[in-house]
């Protein structure tokens, strides 16, 4: 009995330590975004809002965030439009070929991004896609697609295909049965892959650095460039804090309205 209690306590301590380890960077960023010092220091030297003011005035960061949001949104939409029918095809067409196809679709997950990026630069320079929005979106779609296909396929594995058959016998065309029965059934997979895909696109530095060009500098690329030239800019810390706050608010709202965490 005593031993059990001891193990319970150890468990709790370990869990707490892991949680702390994960949370500390977030806390540090929030606290430091209000630090009056130009340089990183902990504990902070004084309270200021000037970094936030500077951010609101800074066009470059704002444009970069806008670019990131635009690229992520477009990439997710197109990846869903391609990935959902592809997954449905793999699910319906139960043959050895579909197995090969599904592992082929997942293969970008295994490839080191940097290797792929190098190939992409050369290829893009031939077809004149370097620095274009289309080129960047296309690359991000390839990054997102494996997540979409993986998650949608896993949702589809819970679909009782007789519900689709039932809809058909009740008078629904195959298209209508897809919209009314299949889509609602795979909604969890679609929502999660959209969220994941959005984060993958928003986070990507490797590929975007290689092919973004000057016109389409995404937020992480802009930050990376600044970091390389100026060092750790308190402005970047403030921007990160804003993004984080934004993410937390969205996550909480999504939880309240769709309780999305149950799909994870």
């Amino acid at each position: 009995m005593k031993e059990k209690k001891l193990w319970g306590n150890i468990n709790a301590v370990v869990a707490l330590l892991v949680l702390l380890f994960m949370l500390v960077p977030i806390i540090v960023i929030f606290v430091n975004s209000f630090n009056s010092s130009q340089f990183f220091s902990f504990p902070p030297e004084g309270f200021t809002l000037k970094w936030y003011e500077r951010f609101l005035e800074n066009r470059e960061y704002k444009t970069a965030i806008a670019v990131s949001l635009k690229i992520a949104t477009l990439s997710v939409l197109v990846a869903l439009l391609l990935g959902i029918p592809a997954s449905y095809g793999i699910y319906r067409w139960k043959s050895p070929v579909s197995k090969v196809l599904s592992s082929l679709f997942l293969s970008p997950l295994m490839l080191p991004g940097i290797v792929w990026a190098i190939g992409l630069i050369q290829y893009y320079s031939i077809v004149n896609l370097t620095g274009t929005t289309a080129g960047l979106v296309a690359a991000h779609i390839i990054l997102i697609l494996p997540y979409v296909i993986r998650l949608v396929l896993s949702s589809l594995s819970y679909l009782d295909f007789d519900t689709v058959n039932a809809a058909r016998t009740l008078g629904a065309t195959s298209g209508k049965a897809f919209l009314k029965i299949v889509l609602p059934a795979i909604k969890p997979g679609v929502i999660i892959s959209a969220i994941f895909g959005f984060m993958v696109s928003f986070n990507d530095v490797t590929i975007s650095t290689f092919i973004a060009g000057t016109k389409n500098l995404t937020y992480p690329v802009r930050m990376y460039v600044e970091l390389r030239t100026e060092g750790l800019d308190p402005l970047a810390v403030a921007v990160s804090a804003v993004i984080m706050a934004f993410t937390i608010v969205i996550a909480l709202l999504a939880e309240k309205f769709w309780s999305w965490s149950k799909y994870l």
Partner: protein
Amino acid sequence: MSFLEIRGIVKDFDDTKVLQGLDLDVEEKDILVLLGPSGCGKTTLLRIIAGLLDPDSGSMTLDGKNLLEVPVEDRGIGFVFQKYALFPHMNVEENITFGLKVRKVGKDEIKKRLDDVLELVELKGYEKRKVSELSGGQQQRVALARALIIKPKLMLLDEPLSNLDAKLRTSVRVNIVRILKKLGITAIMVTHDQVEAMTMGDKVVLMNEGKISQEGRPKDIYFDPDNLFVAEFLGSPKINVLKVESGCMNGINVGKEMLSKWTGLDERAIPDGTFYLGVRPEYIAPADDGIKGKIEHVEISGADTNVHMELLGSGCVMRVSSGSVEYSEGNDVAVAFRSGSCYLFDSSGKRIR
């Protein structure tokens, strides 16, 4: 011409021949039951009729119209799936009215038909329930209502009772027949359960390995089996089958005279060579001057008692009313077959008439 006419349906899955040139006629307002062991092709046939599968060859007409030219969604055939296949993201009302909404039926008409069908399946008050909150029996009724509301020309039911517990089955069985008969709907039901088949079907079609083994009224196929497969499939406990080889049973010489005496058949009707003698357990009764046997095991199943015994070197079951006589294991027993109750089958299993 029959209401539903099926001719020469062939269906292969890869290398497996599932249906081998099947013919079937269903009369209007009849309930036809497709009965058979699993893998006999009965569900495949049902799905072909619904249009969920295409046959490799053959033809089908429903009410005189070529069915194979009509896409699934326009066939107007109701289908009740084995696991109900209710739409999990819709409530009871949305499930039931789905078929009317996709057909763009007017709101008032939907309301009216919903009320009627809910009353029919006794689900009034459950409209807004989630289907996952319903019991198996209620889910089954939703599935039935969903198929009925489109006023189908033909209803197909795939093992509709197999997911219900035994107690519920009897009442649901009666209920389904009552509803189908009340609405005068032609129906084809698939089952592997002989009791369901016998009690629900106007006509029973017994299938085996993609072919029809026998079809007819339940009474006829039970009392007048065409072959050994049908005789063995129907009846519980199973019919007793005794093999006779040139007048011998398990090496015991019985001879035509004895066989004639036991079965009540004319000596000339008893074939030479190898054949099978079939007699149902309920047609064996104790008789003092009968065939001698030994009781191996006694099973009391309520009103009836099954007496398992060794008879002429084979295992045999006799079914008697419980309580009349005391039977105990190891005792000797003498039994006789009721006159005219024995079937003879040739070595290929075909009935010798």
